[in-house]
């Protein structure tokens, strides 16, 4: 394992601006344990909430029995008069909406669904009360398998639909042209249901301020403004009566990108009872109840010529969306995205894909880091290796033959995705060279002393990020990003405040947005504060999702800082007694032909000594709010090639990662050190998808891995230090040429590791087509192949 890599900083363009490896400002508090998360907040009179949750996946509620002594501290749907269910629609034709009750009404549709809310001075007492409530339920047959759920006669999650399909999506172009291809490979490939497992779970504190006539909700959220929209809808309250505060957030990955029924419940409860209330999600609730991700199934055929040229792809994909359409992303984003992104970074003349977003008696699935791309990459890249095996070619060469080439950029692919820039083949070539495929092939021929089997695998993807209005208006979900806004304000002492509506859940935005402002204004990063996570203090934003912050909020900060700089120039020119056209802003000062004045002096004069300004000074002031969109808002396309060497123990099925290489291109990197960290974190999650994480369900719809002893997450000893190489092809459309990069690390690992395992097992005639690739699955595959051989012999 190559654990030693050179981490000496690249020479930055400026010591604090775009491209500099500035240490993270927020780490000063976070690494000293001084961060403030929802669970750290104490309010006078705070009481704790525990929920009675459904023990069954599918049932009718006959009765809820509350002991007489707890009547006034237990609440059910009957108490929530006037509260509307959560409803996340889409504008896609044929979509069937679902109403997610805040507390279950007549029917239960998933294990863990909220049935009653119990409040007490401590969580333990609230749990005691919850344990005393008994449910009289009539169990219904559970919809536990998304493929069976599509069959006629299946039990129905939402009876009035007539079937279990939220949405069917379809695309076809010239598929008949591909059918005569000499190579045709068909497989079924699937990815398991997972939990997102941020270090910090969800948490909510609700309190009402009568002086302000305002509900304040402290909630660990990626998108405080969207929570306010949703809450305002459910509670039928004016937006001005709702303030959402998202303090420090310990990881989100999508899990903190939805409106929770718990948020609605606690908002109602604090207004009903008059004291602040708190609910902190425990790990069991996280695993069982609130949201899952990743469960895809593909039936896919790839057509190719003997030289590996892709002729077309034909696919039917199913996504298990769970019981309800989550707000705001809906139940359909994932499956609809599969249709549009399955062709990956490749060119091909023919393509057909049909997908189903299927309702089941499981908790809703959410877009998890990488969203549908992790599943799509797994399916497509596994198939390309099978095509390569069929053609007798090196998998890398098959990819090089089909990747979009740099001279074709910008490139509109078969589904009209507009790839903005990049050199995909170069990324793959670098990864192939670094992993040393020739060396591994020689080693494979020789064999291992310990009897293990060595395999090497590749994968490559491109990832649309920072999707704008033109993309999201097409989905028609409750949230469409427009111009991203930011406010820049010089303080009287020359410091800078930036206010943004996106929120950091670990990305280091307090540092990177400060670097952008430094680049624009020359104000020292240490003198810049980023204000975020509070609807009362920040401009509207759809929040942090889709790897959008650096492109969108970074662009908005640059635009606001530019506007602020223009205003400072106007004041500075007056102070220098020259025409505005003759001054420039350089290194934090306004320079004229015969002198200069610093931003600090300008701020001091504007706020503290206005008597020094002439009467005709521009009145705009030193606080600017501006909106930003890239020149083209169809998204940036970052990309990466991953290469991995594994050793498989054929007697136990264990997979060990021996070497891991990542070559990625996220456009211009504002802080390469932070990007490194995001890629390491993404890789860890990708390894989890590939080898460990799985939430299985039984036929009654019961989730089976309900503690972290059963639901395995990779730990430090399971995640290797990768060799990392950055390419930096600017996006032609964004400020500074940045691209969204935060999710990418989690996309490619399952595909690369899957290909490496299959490479190792090829001689045994075993293929792993299902994630996670557990020792058990590998061993069962090997034993079955041995039995088949024995029977044939």
């Amino acid at each position: 394992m190559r654990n030693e890599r050179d981490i000496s900083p690249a020479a930055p363009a400026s010591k604090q601006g775009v491209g500099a490896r500035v240490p993270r400002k927020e780490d000063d508090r976070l690494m000293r344990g001084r961060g403030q998360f929802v669970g750290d907040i104490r309010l006078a009179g705070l009481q704790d909430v525990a929920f009675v949750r459904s023990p069954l996946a599918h049932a009718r509620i006959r009765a809820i029995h509350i002991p007489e002594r707890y009547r006034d501290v237990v609440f059910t749907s009957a108490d929530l008069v006037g509260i509307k269910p959560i409803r996340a629609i889409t504008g896609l034709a044929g979509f069937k909406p679902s109403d997610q009750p805040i507390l279950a009404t007549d029917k239960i549709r998933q294990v863990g669904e909220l049935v009653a809310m119990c409040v007490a001075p401590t969580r333990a007492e609230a749990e005691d009360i919850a344990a005393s409530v008994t449910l009289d339920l009539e169990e219904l047959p559970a919809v536990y398998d998304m493929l069976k759920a599509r069959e006629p006669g299946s039990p129905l999650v939402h009876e009035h639909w007539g079937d279990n399909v939220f949405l069917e999506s379809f695309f076809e172009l010239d598929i008949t042209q591909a059918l005569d291809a000499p190579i045709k490979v068909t497989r079924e490939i699937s990815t398991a249901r997972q939990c997102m497992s941020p270090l910090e779970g969800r948490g909510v504190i609700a309190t009402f301020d009568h002086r302000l006539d305002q509900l304040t909700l402290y909630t660990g959220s990626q998108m405080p403004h969207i929570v306010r929209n949703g809450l305002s809808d459910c509670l039928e309250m004016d937006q001005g009566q709702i303030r959402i505060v998202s303090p420090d957030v310990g990881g989100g990955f999508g899990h903190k990108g939805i409106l929770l029924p718990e948020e609605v419940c606690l908002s109602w409860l604090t207004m009903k009872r008059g004291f602040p209330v708190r609910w902190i999600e425990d790990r069991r609730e996280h695993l069982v109840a609130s949201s899952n991700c990743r469960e895809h199934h593909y039936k896919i055929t790839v057509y190719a010529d003997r030289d590996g040229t892709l002729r077309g792809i034909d696919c039917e994909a199913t996504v298990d969306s769970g019981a309800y359409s989550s707000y705001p992303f809906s139940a359909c984003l994932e499956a609809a995205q599969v249709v549009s992104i399955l062709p990956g970074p490749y060119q091909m003349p023919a393509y057909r894909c049909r997908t189903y977003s299927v309702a089941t008696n499981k908790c809703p699935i959410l877009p998890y880091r990488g969203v549908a791309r992790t599943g799509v990459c797994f399916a497509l890249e596994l198939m390309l290796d099978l095509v390569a095996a069929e053609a007798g070619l090196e998998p890398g060469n098959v990819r090089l033959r089909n990747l979009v080439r740099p001279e074709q950029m910008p490139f509109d692919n078969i589904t009209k995705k507009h790839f903005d820039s990049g050199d995909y083949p170069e990324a793959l070539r670098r990864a192939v060279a670094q992993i040393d495929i020739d060396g591994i092939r020689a080693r494979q021929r020789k064999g291992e002393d310990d009897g293990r089997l060595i395999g090497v695998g590749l994968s490559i993807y491109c990832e649309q990020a920072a999707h704008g209005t033109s993309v999201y208006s097409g989905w028609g979900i409750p949230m469409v990003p427009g111009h991203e806004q930011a406010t820049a304000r010089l303080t009287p002492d020359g410091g800078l405040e930036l206010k943004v509506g996106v929120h950091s859940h670990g990305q280091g935005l307090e540092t990177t947005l400060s670097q952008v402002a430094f680049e624009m204004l020359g104000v020292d990063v240490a003198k810049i504060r980023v204000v975020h996570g509070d609807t009362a203090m920040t401009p509207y934003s759809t929040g942090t999702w889709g790897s959008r912050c650096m492109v969108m909020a970074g662009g908005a900060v640059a635009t606001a800082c530019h506007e602020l700089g223009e205003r400072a120039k106007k004041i500075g020119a007056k102070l220098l007694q020259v025409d505005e056209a003759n001054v420039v802003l350089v290194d934090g000062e306004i320079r004229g032909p015969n002198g200069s004045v610093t931003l600090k002096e300008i701020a001091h004069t504007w706020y503290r000594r206005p008597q020094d300004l002439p009467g005709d000074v521009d009145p705009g002031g030193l606080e600017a709010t501006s909106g930003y969109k890239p020149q083209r808002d169809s998204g940036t396309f970052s990309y990466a090639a991953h290469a991995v060497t594994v050793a498989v123990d054929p007697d136990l099925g264990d997979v060990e990662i021996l070497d891991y290489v990542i070559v990625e291109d996220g456009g211009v990197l504002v802080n390469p050190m932070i990007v490194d960290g995001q890629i390491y974190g993404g890789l860890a999650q990708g390894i989890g998808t590939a080898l460990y994480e799985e939430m299985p369900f039984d036929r009654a719809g019961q989730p089976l891995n309900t503690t972290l002893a059963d639901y395995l997450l990779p730990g430090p000893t399971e995640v290797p230090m990768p060799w990392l190489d950055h390419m930096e092809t600017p996006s032609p459309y964004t400020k500074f040429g940045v691209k969204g990069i935060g999710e990418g690390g989690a996309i490619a690992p399952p595909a690369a590791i899957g290909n490496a395992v299959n490479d190792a097992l090829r001689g045994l005639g075993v293929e792993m087509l299902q994630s996670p690739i557990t020792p058990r699955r590998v061993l069962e595959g090997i034993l079955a192949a041995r039995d088949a051989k024995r029977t044939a012999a």
Partner: protein
Amino acid sequence: MKPAPFAYERPRDVASALAAMAGDGVVKVMAGGQSLGPMLNLRLVAPDTIVDITGLAELKHVEVAGEELVIGACVTHADIEDGRIPDVTRGAMQRVASAIAYRAVRNRGTIGGSLSHADPSADWVSTFAALCATLSLRSAKGARLVAMKDFMLGALESVLQPGEMLEAVRVPVMSPSARWGYVKSCRKTGEFAHAIGAVLIDPEAGRARVVIGAVEAAPIIVDNAEELFGGRITNDFKSRFDARVADTLLSKAGMSDAADRHIHVTILRRAVAEAAA
């Protein structure tokens, strides 16, 4: 995930602990709490009283008495890992201890707590069975000795009676000619084992004791394991190991899944190989 209400007693010595344990209602003894804590929080157990013996000095006592090492029940895994107790097994116990769960668990978890919990996947139930250890049990009525091989009855089940606690583990000094092998299969570092193989083989004495653990029940203990080695134990025991006999043994023990048997046999073979190395 908060426990149901319970009374908490922290007695000052073993005698008062035994008195507290003789009280009414369901009593659970806590000795480190590394398994009991999560079970309480998940409300899988809801005792009326917890008697916490973790801090009792009497139960941390360690001494070599004749041909035995007597280890108090509240000695932690970390005490053993760090070599704070005499080594009578030529490093075997130290190696086992160092691979139990995570260091944080080893700092608090105790051998007595682990054995009393009787989790089939835990390391000590298999290790001490292979090392031919004896357990000292004590209740208000008196003391008794039980061989480790007779202690565990099934998953989370032992011969411990209500009011009775495990006081000490007595481990025989390992003979100089004995060979030790211990291998377990985990999906990740610190995870509970899915298969354990523990072997104590003495070719000079012609004896071998083989334990197959993590079988979702009490470990399978083969006292006289000649049949696994073609009928006799000699210096070439590694090459004489017969995987088919082990497989049959597991089938007879009710392990019907072929992949399960394959894993356990593989782990056992590797434990034998380690002993031969």
